[in-house]
C-alpha cells in the first residue's frame, strides 16, 4: 500500500520464513497500522459496520441455505420449518431478513457521508465507483433474496421487477422470458434466483476487497477534506479506529438486535406471510423500504419505458458524480451553498421513500376549501361564534385551519340533512397527490446533480484549515 512504509518485522523463524514466501502477516499488520486521518468522525464508522453486515449476511445465508428448499411447492413451507423446527432457526432467519434492512440502512448512511464530505473526488473516484457497483449488486442480491420465501410480495415483486426488462424495445419480451425461464415467475425462476442470490454476495465481497484496496491506495478522506500533510495528521488504524469502530458497531448491533428480537416483521410486509398465488395480486404491491425512493421515481412517470429509464438514471448518475462536481473543495463544511442543496437532496430522497410507500392517487394533503377570512366570518356567525379580533395573523390562520375542518363536517351534515349548502361549501378542495409529490421530489433529486457542476463554478467556499492537525487543535 503506497505511502505507508511497512513497519512489520517478523519476530520468529517461522514468521520470517512465511514473510519471505507469502507476506500475509505483513499485509495484515500494515492494514492495522494504516495511517488514518486523526479527525475521522462517527460517520466514518459505517465502513466497519458494513463489513460486519456483509459477514453476518453471508454466515446466516449459508446456514439458511442448508435448510431452505428452492422449489415452488416447498419454499414457503421450508421457511416456516426453519422458524419452527430447525434449532435456532427462529433466530437465524429473522437475523438474515432484518440484516438485509440493516445492511441498506448502513450503506445509505455511508453513501450520504461520502456525498457530504466529497469522498468521491480525485483521487478517490475509483473508491466511489466501486462503491456504486457494490450498491448495485446489493440491490440485485436483496431483490433476488426477497423472492425466495415465496410469499405474495416475493412473487409479485419478482413479476414487477422482471417486467422492467420487458420494457426494452424489440427484444424486451424474449429478454424477460429468458430471465424467468418461462412465461411467468415459476419454479425455474425460483431456482436461478436462489443460485444467483447465493453467488452475488461473494462477488460483493470481492469488490469490497477492491474498494478497500483503492481506499488504502488513495488514502481516506476526512471531514475537512484537507489531505494529511504530515504524520501528525494521522493515527494508526489500530488501536484508534478499531476501538472507535468497535464502539459504533456495538451501538449498531443494539438497533439490529432490537428489530431481530422485538420487531422482526416491522420492516417486512404482512402479505409475504401469504404463500405466492399467481392468480391473485395483493391490493398494494410495495417493495422493501430500501427500494421505495426508486419505486416512487418509476411511478412518477406515466410512460413505462421512460419510468424505467428515469429510475436507472437515478442510479447511473451516481457513477458519474465525480465528474459532475466541479468544485475543488471536498467537504461541504466549507461549501455553504452546496450544503444547502445537499440537504434538499436528502429531504427529496426521504420524500421519494414516502411516496413509494403510498398509493399514487392518494392525497398528501387537501387544503380544505380555499376559504378566505370573509367565509370564516360567515361561518362563525352561522354557529354563533365571534370573529377573532386583533391583527394577530397566526391566530387567524389557526382559526382558519380549525374552521376548515369544522366547515367540512358542517357542509356534510347540511348535505345529509338536505338543506341548501352555504356558499363556502361549493368551492373545490385543492390538494396534492402522491404522484405530484413524487414528481416534485424526482425533480429535486435530479436537480441536485444538474446544479452541482454550476455550483462549483459560482460558489465561494469558506476558508479551509491548513492541515488536519491545525483544524483539530483549533489553530485554523
Amino acid at each position, binding site marked *: 500500500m503506497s505511502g505507508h512504509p511497512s*513497519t512489520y518485522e517478523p519476530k520468529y523463524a517461522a514468521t520470517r520464513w512465511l514473510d519471505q514466501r507469502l507476506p500475509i502477516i505483513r499485509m495484515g499488520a500494515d492494514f492495522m*497500522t494504516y*495511517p488514518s486521518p*486523526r479527525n475521522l468522525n462517527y460517520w466514518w464508522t459505517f465502513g466497519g459496520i458494513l463489513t460486519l453486515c456483509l459477514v453476518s449476511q453471508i*454466515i446466516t445465508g449459508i*446456514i439458511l441455505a*442448508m*435448510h431452505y428448499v428452492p422449489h415452488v411447492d416447498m419454499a414457503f413451507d421450508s421457511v416456516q*420449518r426453519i422458524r*419452527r*423446527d*430447525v*434449532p*435456532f*432457526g427462529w*433466530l*437465524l432467519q429473522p437475523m438474515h431478513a432484518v440484516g438485509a434492512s440493516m445492511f441498506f440502512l448502513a450503506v445509505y448512511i455511508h453513501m450520504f457521508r461520502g456525498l457530504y464530505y466529497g469522498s468521491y473526488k480525485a483521487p478517490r473516484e475509483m473508491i466511489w465507483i466501486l462503491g456504486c457497483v457494490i450498491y448495485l449488486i446489493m440491490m440485485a442480491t436483496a431483490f433476488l433474496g426477497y423472492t425466495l420465501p415465496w410469499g405474495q410480495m416475493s412473487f409479485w415483486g419478482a413479476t414487477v421487477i422482471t417486467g422492467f426488462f420487458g420494457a426494452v424495445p424489440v427484444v424486451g419480451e424474449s429478454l424477460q422470458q429468458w430471465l424467468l425461464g418461462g412465461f411467468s415467475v415459476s419454479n425455474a425462476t425460483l431456482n436461478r434466483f436462489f443460485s444467483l442470490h447465493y453467488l452475488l454476495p461473494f462477488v460483493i465481497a470481492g469488490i469490497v476487497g477492491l474498494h478497500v484496496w483503492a481506499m488504502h491506495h488513495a488514502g481516506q478522506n476526512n471531514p475537512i477534506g484537507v489531505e494529511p500533510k504530515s*504524520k*501528525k*495528521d*494521522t*493515527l*494508526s488504524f*489500530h*488501536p*484508534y479506529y478499531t476501538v472507535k469502530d*468497535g464502539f459504533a458497531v456495538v451501538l449498531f448491533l443494539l438497533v439490529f438486535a432490537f428489530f431481530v428480537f422485538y420487531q422482526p416483521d416491522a420492516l417486512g410486509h404482512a402479505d409475504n406471510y401469504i404463500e405466492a398465488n399467481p392468480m391473485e395480486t395483493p391490493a398494494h404491491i410495495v417493495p422493501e423500504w430500501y427500494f421505495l425512493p426508486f419505486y416512487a421515481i418509476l411511478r412518477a412517470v406515466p410512460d413505462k419505458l421512460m419510468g424505467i429509464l428515469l429510475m436507472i438514471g437515478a442510479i447511473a448518475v451516481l457513477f458519474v458524480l465525480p465528474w459532475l462536481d466541479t468544485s475543488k473543495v471536498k467537504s461541504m463544511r466549507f461549501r455553504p451553498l452546496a450544503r444547502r442543496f445537499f440537504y434538499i437532496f436528502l429531504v427529496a430522497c426521504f420524500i421519494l421513500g414516502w411516496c413509494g410507500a403510498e398509493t399514487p392517487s392518494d392525497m398528501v394533503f387537501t387544503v380544505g376549501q380555499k376559504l378566505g377570512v370573509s367565509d370564516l366570518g360567515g361561518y362563525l356567525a352561522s354557529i354563533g361564534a365571534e370573529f377573532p379580533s386583533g391583527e394577530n395573523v397566526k391566530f387567524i390562520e389557526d382559526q382558519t385551519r380549525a374552521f376548515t375542518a369544522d366547515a367540512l363536517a358542517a357542509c356534510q351534515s347540511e348535505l345529509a340533512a338536505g338543506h341548501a349548502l352555504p356558499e363556502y361549501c361549493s368551492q373545490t378542495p385543492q390538494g396534492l397527490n402522491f404522484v405530484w409529490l413524487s414528481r416534485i421530489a424526482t425533480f429535486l433529486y435530479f436537480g441536485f446533480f444538474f446544479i452541482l457542476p454550476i455550483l462549483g463554478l459560482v460558489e465561494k467556499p469558506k476558508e479551509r484549515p491548513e492541515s488536519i*492537525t491545525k483544524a483539530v487543535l483549533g489553530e485554523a
Partner: protein
Amino acid sequence: MSETANSEHHDDHVDEGKRDFILIATGTVAAAGAATFAWPLVAQMGKAADTMAAGSIEINLSGIAEGQQLKMLWRGKPVFVRHRTPAEIAEAENTDISKCPDPETDAERLVPTPDGKVNPKYLVMVGVCTHFGCVPVGESGDFGGWYCPCHGSHYDTAGRIRKGPAPKNLEIPPYEYLSDTVIKVG
C-alpha cells in the same frame, strides 16, 4: 503507531494498569459474546424437531414366513427383520462367541416378548454394515448370515461380525414387542 500523533504525549503512565484492565475486560466480554453467538451457528445443523419426532415404525411379524426377511426403512436406514429357520437359530446359539471380534450371545441380541421370554425366531437389526455403512446381502457369506459386498465383511445368522474389516456386530435398533406379533421400532 509509535510514529503517529500520540507520540508527542508522554504524560500519565499512572493509570496505565487501569487502562489495560478496561481494554482486556472489553475484549473479553466481546469475545465471550462472539463465542456464545457461535453456538446457534453450530447447533442449527443438529436434528430438527420434526426429524426427531418422526422416528418410530410398527412392524407386523406374522406376515413374514420362515426363512424370509422383511426390509423396512426406519430413520432413513433399512431395518432387517428375519424369521430365522431352526437351523439358523441353532447355529446362532451354539457359536463359541469367545472367538468373535465383538462377543455377544444370541439372546443378548434379542428383546423379550410381552411374556418376558425372548423369541429367537425373529431377529431385528439395522441393516447397515458397521464398517462403512453399506447394506449387507442376506443368506450369504461364509457363515450363512449376511455378507457386505463393499469390503467383504461376513456376519453370522445372529448378525455378529465373524470375518472381514467391520469392527462391530450389526446394530440392534431400540424396539419393543407391542404384542406377540407386532413390534415398534424407535
